[in-house]
């Protein structure tokens, strides 16, 4: 690694606004960079919380009924008497782990943090199109997140009907579910404000010369993601309102007639449909899967192009696949519902669309893989995480195929196989890409690089441990082990031969937790002591590196508004002195 500074230190270049109060500047800021950092920090805290809930669950699965060590006494007598976890509490952990990870950690990190910080810089905009909305979006998210967490402290505990909150179970659940619904309404509002802002920013604020087909792939990914959020979230908001009505006004949108719970006939008017919730929920939640994965693909594409020193393979096919993927993601939702008995014809339709949507995913993965061919690859930490993303996402995607086919989905759907499948997509897939992004853009945000040594100490054990956590799930799942058991399956005899994996997975999870310390130390150490770098430490082509100092100018980003002359990935062009050709460099340089 040779830190070639393409521009002299510009640390003093900040246009400081002395009249700005502390609150305006760091708390209620309207600067997209500050908001991006706020999103990042909040989302990382939620990521940590969601991870901790998972550790508690993994303890219970490996050592069912044994007191949780160290913190067992802190969980509260209602949840874990003498540190022994109750089933109800395990259910809360499961529901809240999913909710926190999806809605409060990964999406805010991928879209709120990276999107906010990087998109305006990459398109040469001084800020997002609506800075006030941007601030409102963050604070809605923050309020929604905090509200969600208060669920743990109300009588009956937090939401415990799964992150999917299927009725009638969720309608008859304790108060925590109402809090979950209000929290979701806030989170959805935040997402809607954010997505409107992103689309307008990308369409309207592209700098001169930056046509759509010159956009960095990351920006494309954010654009498609924003459309998914914009159009898929409202049906869930509607469903949330209906469930609130069911819970608070006693309506029966999701409640069928003659429902008996614990021997008691429910006093509802009936006539509702539990399946309706599933339709509306998955109408959001399937596009949501792509909201989780598309920004990750964008990040990986940027890092791969920069670190192979060659153009992305098939930029146009990548873009078209992305658009097609986004479009198709709206018409595959019911493949989550093959087990509901909604009928064979409708299942056959969704089976077909599901097989079709796998094609563009494979195109994207293949194009990224082919981009490596013949490159002079720099194996720095961001690149390692980006490279690991490819096979991990590959495993996640390919194991999804049997779930898209009705015949194989029916035996697999309620087992750990499903957990393994989507965690491969989201954890070693998306989260690795997000780590890659943090290592990659850290110098832009702070002006300092993160430590390579600590980065590699973080990467390699993480890769091994995370596979230790998730791979055995396929083995257990194929053996038919249900994913809804709070004792990990001890109650049954048939999965005895795969029970040993429970301990392997749990200890891998604890190991995974331990090695994240390298990341935390690296993160804080590098903010203050990391190697100082110039504007473009990776010799990249895109505007955020070539035309903005590190960190960018406080208001307005660019000292001088750039103009764009070419696509984002002209690396190692023949006849050039350098192996990169910035987008903003005029033709006759």
């Amino acid at each position, binding site marked *: 690694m040779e830190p070639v500074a393409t521009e002299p230190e510009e640390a003093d270049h900040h246009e400081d606004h002395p009249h700005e109060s502390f609150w305006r500047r760091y708390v209620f800021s309207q600067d997209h960079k500050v908001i991006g950092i706020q999103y990042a920090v909040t989302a990382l805290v939620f990521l940590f919380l969601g991870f901790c809930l998972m550790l508690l669950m993994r303890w219970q699965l490996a050592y069912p009924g044994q007191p949780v060590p160290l913190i067992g006494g802190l969980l509260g007598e209602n949840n874990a008497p003498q540190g022994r976890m109750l089933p109800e509490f395990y259910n809360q952990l499961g529901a809240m782990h999913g909710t926190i990870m999806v809605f409060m950690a990964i999406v805010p990190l991928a879209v709120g943090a990276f999107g906010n910080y990087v998109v305006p810089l990459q398109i040469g905009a001084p800020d997002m199109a609506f800075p006030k909305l941007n601030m409102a979006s963050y604070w809605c998210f923050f309020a929604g997140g905090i509200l969600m967490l208060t669920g743990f402290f109300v009588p009956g505990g937090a939401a415990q009907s799964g992150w999917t909150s299927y009725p009638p179970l969720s309608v008859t659940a304790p108060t925590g579910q109402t809090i979950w619904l209000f929290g979701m309404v806030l989170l959805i509002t935040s997402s809607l404000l954010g997505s409107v802002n992103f689309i307008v920013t990308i369409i309207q604020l592209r700098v001169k010369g930056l046509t759509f087909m010159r956009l960095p792939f990351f920006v494309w990914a954010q654009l498609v993601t924003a459309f998914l959020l914009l159009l898929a979230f409202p049906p869930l908001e509607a469903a949330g309102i209906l469930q609130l009505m069911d819970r608070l*006004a006693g309506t029966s949108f999701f409640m069928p007639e003659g429902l008996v719970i614990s021997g008691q006939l429910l006093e*509802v008017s009936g006539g509702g449909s539990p399946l*309706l919730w599933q339709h509306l929920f998955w109408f959001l939640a399937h596009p949501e899967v792509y909201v989780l994965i598309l920004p990750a693909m964008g990040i990986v594409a940027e890092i791969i192009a920069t670190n192979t020193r060659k153009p992305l393979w098939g930029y146009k096919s990548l873009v078209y696949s992305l658009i097609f993927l986004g479009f198709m993601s709206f018409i595959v939702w019911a493949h989550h519902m093959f087990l509901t008995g909604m009928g064979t014809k409708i299942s056959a339709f969704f089976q077909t669309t599901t097989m079709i949507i796998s094609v563009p995913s494979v195109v994207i993965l293949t194009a990224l893989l082919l981009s490596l061919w013949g490159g002079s690859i720099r194996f720095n930490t961001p690149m390692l995480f980006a490279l690991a993303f490819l096979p991990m996402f590959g495993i996640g995607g390919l194991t999804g195929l049997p779930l898209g086919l009705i015949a194989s989905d029916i035996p697999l759907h309620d087992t750990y196989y499903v957990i393994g499948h989507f965690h491969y997509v989201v954890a070693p897939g998306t989260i690795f890409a997000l780590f890659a992004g943090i290592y990659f853009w850290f110098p832009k945000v702070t002006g300092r690089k993160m430590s390579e040594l600590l980065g590699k100490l973080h990467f390699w054990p993480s890769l091994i441990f995370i596979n230790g956590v998730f791979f055995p799930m396929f083995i257990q799942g194929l053996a038919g082990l249900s994913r809804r058991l709070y004792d990990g399956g001890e109650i049954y005899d048939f999965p005895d031969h795969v029970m040993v994996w429970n301990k392997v997975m749990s200890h891998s999870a604890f190991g995974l937790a331990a090695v994240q310390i390298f990341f935390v130390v690296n993160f804080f150490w590098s903010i203050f002591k990391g190697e100082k770098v110039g504007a473009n430490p990776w010799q990249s082509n895109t505007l955020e590196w070539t035309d903005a100092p590190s960190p960018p100018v406080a208001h307005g980003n660019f000292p001088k508004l750039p103009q764009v002359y070419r696509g984002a990935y002209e690396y190692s062009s023949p006849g050039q002195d350098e192996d990169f050709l910035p987008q903003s460099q005029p033709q006759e340089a």
Partner: protein
Amino acid sequence: MSVAIPFNSEPRPDTGLYNAKLGVWLFLASEVMLFGALFSTYILLRTAAVEWPQGSEILDVPIAFFNTLVLIASSVTMVMSWASLKMGDVGKFRLYMALTILCALIFLAVKAYEYGAKFSHHHYPSDSTFLAIYFTLTGLHGLHIIGGVIVNGYLWGPGLKMWKSDPERFTNRIEVAGLYWHFVDLVWIFLFPVLYLL
């Protein structure tokens, strides 16, 4: 302290749009999906129901007919307030905007009376899926009306000072608020026959 955002009031040459206009249309697109999900719910519940009352048996058609006309009128006054600004007549703008807000308030008052009448006859959302969807849809629509009243009230009152400093941007704001208002009207145009007449 904020920076100047390009195309805040003047349209971008290649898209022909200023930012807020694209923004509000995107927002309306999401609203279409929100109400779409509720309409879808309505269809599903109705087609699955053993019996479904005709709206006019339970609900008050003449009063809702009156409310429909009020809302349509408010849409016209809204577009007229924008047209007045385009022609540079602030006085007329204020008049038409006041009429728009007045219409909205009449609509809300009538709606409140209707709700009260239903409750006094012991018709509650929990009684049947018909009443459940009726109260949910009209309630959500009512919230949209309240939101519109707040925005329009702001533009009629304190927001008007922008007319002095940046008339083009202020006119744009009225156009954007109008787009939202017409959409709320449009939703009612569908709600009225679906809930009251069929």
